[in-house]
C-alpha cells in the first residue's frame, strides 16, 4: 500500500510568495509515519500559538521585521488560516532601526492586514523618561517602552521570537514564561512545563511571554525560510555597504554609527545575521545571496549569531540575563 502526501495550494499564501511543497513525511512508507525535524518544530510552534490564543484574553505578537519574528508570524498565519491572525503585532522601535527593516515591517503588516502597535524609544528620550546611554546603544532602553505598551494595551501575553540556542540565559527560558507585575523574570522560580500542556494563568497585573520557536536553531530558521519561501528584509542577503570595523564587527556607516577618526571605512560585500539597533548590530562579510546559500553558510559558521553581530551582549557575561530579569524580550 502506498500513501500519497498530496499537496495542493489553492490560494496565494499571505506570507509565502509561492507554495513550495514541504515534505511532511520523513519516509514515504505508510507504516513509518514520522515527522521530519522541521515539521515537528512547526507542529509544536502552531500548537503553542493556538493554545495561547485560546487561553489568553489579549495577546500581542512582537514583530521587529527580523527573521525570527517573521517566521513566528508565518507560523501564526498557518495556525489560524483561513482566518486572520486574531491579535495585533507590537514593535518596539529604538529609533535606530534600519530603514529597510521598517519598510519591510510596514509592507508585511499591510499585506497581512494586521494591526500594528509601535512603542517608540525616541518618544521616551524626547520627553525625558529615558536618557541616551554613554555607549550609544539603545537595545537596553527598549524595556520600559515595552512594559508600558503591555500595561497600556492590557496585553496579558506577548509572543516573542526568542530562541534558546541564541544565548545562555535564553537557554533557560520556558516556552510560556511568567512575568511579574514589574515585568521581571525570575529564572530561579520558573513554572514546571510538562508534556505539551501549557499553562499561562497568572494574577492580575502579571503577564506571560510566549516563545513558540524556542526549540529552533538559527539553521532551522533558514531552512524553514527557504522551504516556505518566506520573503525577508533585503539586508539579510549579500549586498555592498559602506562599513567600518569596531570590536571585530563590521558596523554600517550611518547617522547613529559614525566611525571614529582611527576607524577606516570601506565598501564590502556583507549581510546581516541578526537585525537590531543599527548602533550595535554588526554585519558579516558574506557572498550569500540566496536562502540556500545562507543555509550552507550558517551551518558551517564557527561563531554564534549574537557573538558575531551583537555588541550589547558583550557588555558582561550575564548581560542578557540581567536585561531579561528586568523585563526585556
Amino acid at each position, binding site marked *: 500500500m502506498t500513501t500519497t502526501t498530496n499537496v495542493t495550494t489553492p490560494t496565494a499564501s499571505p506570507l509565502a510568495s509561492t507554495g513550495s511543497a514541504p515534505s511532511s513525511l520523513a519516509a514515504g512508507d505508510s507504516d513509518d509515519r514520522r*515527522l521530519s525535524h522541521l515539521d515537528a518544530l512547526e507542529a509544536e510552534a502552531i500548537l503553542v500559538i493556538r493554545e495561547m490564543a485560546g487561553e489568553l484574553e489579549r495577546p500581542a505578537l512582537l514583530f521587529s521585521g527580523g527573521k525570527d519574528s517573521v517566521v513566528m508570524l508565518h507560523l501564526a498565519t498557518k495556525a489560524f488560516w483561513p482566518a486572520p491572525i486574531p491579535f495585533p503585532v507590537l514593535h518596539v522601535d529604538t529609533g535606530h532601526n534600519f530603514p529597510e527593516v521598517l519598510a519591510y515591517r510596514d509592507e508585511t503588516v499591510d499585506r497581512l*492586514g494586521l494591526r500594528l502597535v509601535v512603542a517608540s524609544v525616541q518618544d521616551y528620550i524626547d520627553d525625558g523618561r529615558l536618557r541616551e546611554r554613554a555607549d550609544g546603544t539603545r537595545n537596553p532602553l527598549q524595556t520600559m517602552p515595552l512594559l508600558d505598551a503591555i500595561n497600556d494595551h492590557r496585553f496579558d501575553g506577548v509572543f516573542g521570537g526568542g530562541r534558546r540556542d541564541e544565548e545562555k540565559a535564553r537557554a533557560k527560558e520556558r516556552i510560556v514564561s511568567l512575568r511579574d507585575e514589574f515585568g521581571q523574570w525570575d529564572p530561579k522560580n520558573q513554572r514546571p512545563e510538562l508534556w505539551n500542556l501549557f499553562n499561562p494563568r497568572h494574577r492580575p497585573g502579571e503577564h506571560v511571554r510566549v516563545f513558540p520557536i524556542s526549540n529552533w536553531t538559527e539553521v532551522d530558521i533558514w531552512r524553514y525560510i527557504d522551504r516556505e519561501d518566506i520573503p525577508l528584509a533585503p539586508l539579510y542577503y549579500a549586498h555592498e555597504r559602506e562599513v567600518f570595523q569596531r570590536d571585530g564587527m563590521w558596523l554600517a556607516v550611518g547617522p547613529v554609527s559614525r566611525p571614529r577618526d582611527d576607524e577606516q571605512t570601506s565598501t564590502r560585500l556583507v549581510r546581516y545575521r541578526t537585525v537590531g539597533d543599527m548602533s550595535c548590530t554588526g554585519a558579516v562579510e558574506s557572498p550569500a545571496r540566496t536562502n540556500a546559500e545562507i543555509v550552507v553558510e550558517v551551518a558551517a559558521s564557527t561563531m554564534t549569531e549574537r557573538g558575531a553581530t551583537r555588541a550589547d551582549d558583550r557588555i558582561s557575561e550575564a548581560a542578557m540575563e540581567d536585561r531579561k530579569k528586568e523585563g526585556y524580550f
Partner: protein
Amino acid sequence: MATNTLTSTRGTLLRLATAGSVDDGKSTLVGRLLHDTKSVLSDQLAAVERVSRDRGLTAADLALLTDGLRAEREQGITIDVAYRYFATANRSFVLADCPGHVQYTRNTVTGSSTADVVVLLVDARKGVLEQTRRHLAVTALLRVPHVVVAVNKIDLVDFSEAVYDRVEAEVQAVARELGVVDAIAIPVSALDGDNVAVRSARTPWYSGPSLLELLEALPPSDDPANESFRLPVQLVIRPQGAARDEQHRDYRGYAGQVASGVVRVGDEVVALPSGRRTTVVGIDLGERTLDEAFAPQSVTLRLADEIDISRGDVIAAAVDAPEPTQDITAVLCWLGDVPLRPGQRLLLKHGSRTVQTAVRSLDGALDLDDLHTAPSEALSLNDIGLVTLRLASPVPVENYATSRRGGSFLLIDAHDGRTVAAGMVGATLPTGAPAPTRPEGDEAWEI
C-alpha cells in the same frame, strides 16, 4: 540491522533529558556531547575558556556551556533546565539539562515529561544515591521510552570493569523495582570523553556503543502515531466576514494537534464529551490540504455535520473513543510549595480543557528509601503520591500506561495560576498496599 535503524531515524528529532544526583557530572557530560559533536562555536568556547582561566582551572570547564545563569556559575551548580541543540549527520537532538539538587526535582519532571530518552548519570565511585532513586522513579512514572545509565567518572576508578559491573547491577536492581526493565548502561568519562562520542580504548572490556552512537540509533518506540486517533480542539476557526479570501467566508474548522493516531478524510469520528458522530471531510495544514494527518501534526479538521464542538472538546476515532468520566485515580508528582491535602480544590488541565477538581482522597505516597507506598496525610514539594479526584464535568481521560498524551494532566492553583502537580491517570505506585486517608464526611467533597 543497525543500518536499518539509522535509516529510519534519519532526519528525525530526538528529545533527551539528563538526570542524576548533584555533582554526578550532568552538565559536564552535556558540554562534552556538544563539544564532541562540534556544536560549540568558537566564541562560546572562548568565553568558557576565559571564565575557566579566571577561576584558576587548567582546562575548560565544559559545564559552563550549559550553566548559563549568574547564580549557577557562582555556585557551580545547575538550577534550572537548560535546553541545548545539537545535530549529527543522522539526527537532530533537543537536550534538556536538568539540575540534580533535590529542591529542583520539579525541573527533572519538566525535562522528563517530553523526553524520548533520559540519560541518568551515576558516579562510579558513589553508586546509587537518593536523587538517583528519585530520578529513576520519575522516569519510570512518566514512562520515558528509553533510559540510558551513564556510569560516569570511570576514569576515577581506573577504568575498572569490576566497579562498573557492581554499579550497573545496583542501578539495574533499583530500575527493575521501579518497573524500568530495559535500561542500557554505558561506562563513560564525561570529563575526558571516553565512550561519549567515540568508543574508548581505555575500556576494552566494554563492547557496546558509545553514548552518541546509541542516541543516534534509538528507535522512537513510543510513537504516538501508532495509538488511536485523538485531537483536542484548541480553537474553532470561523473567519466569516474577516476571511482574507471571500471563498473562505463559510469555512468552519476545528484546529488542534493530533495527540495520537492517524486521521484520514472519510473517517468516522466522535466529539467528546457530547458523543455526537460525524465524518471528516477535509484536513488543512495552513493552506495545504492533506489526505491524512498523524501525531504530532497541528492541523484543522473540517467535518460533515455542523455539530456543537468547542475548545476543550476532543475529536476521537469513533471506533474506540474513551469514555468521559468525572472520577479518576492518578499518581501525582507534587510540585507546589504548599502541600496538597485531601479536600483541596484545584483546576485540572487535560488536553485543551480545564475543569475544577476536588481531591477526594490521598491514597498513599511513595517512600523513596525502600520504594514502597505508605499512608500519608499530605504531599509536600517533590513528593509522589496516589490520589482520587472528582472532576466538575466529564473529561475523556485515558490510562497513562497506554497513552502518555491522553493520560497526562496538570493541576493548577486557581488563585495564582501556578502549576502545582503533574498527574498521570490510572498510574500505580511500585509496591505496598495503598492506605487511604479520606477526610471526614467524604460527601462534603462532592462537586
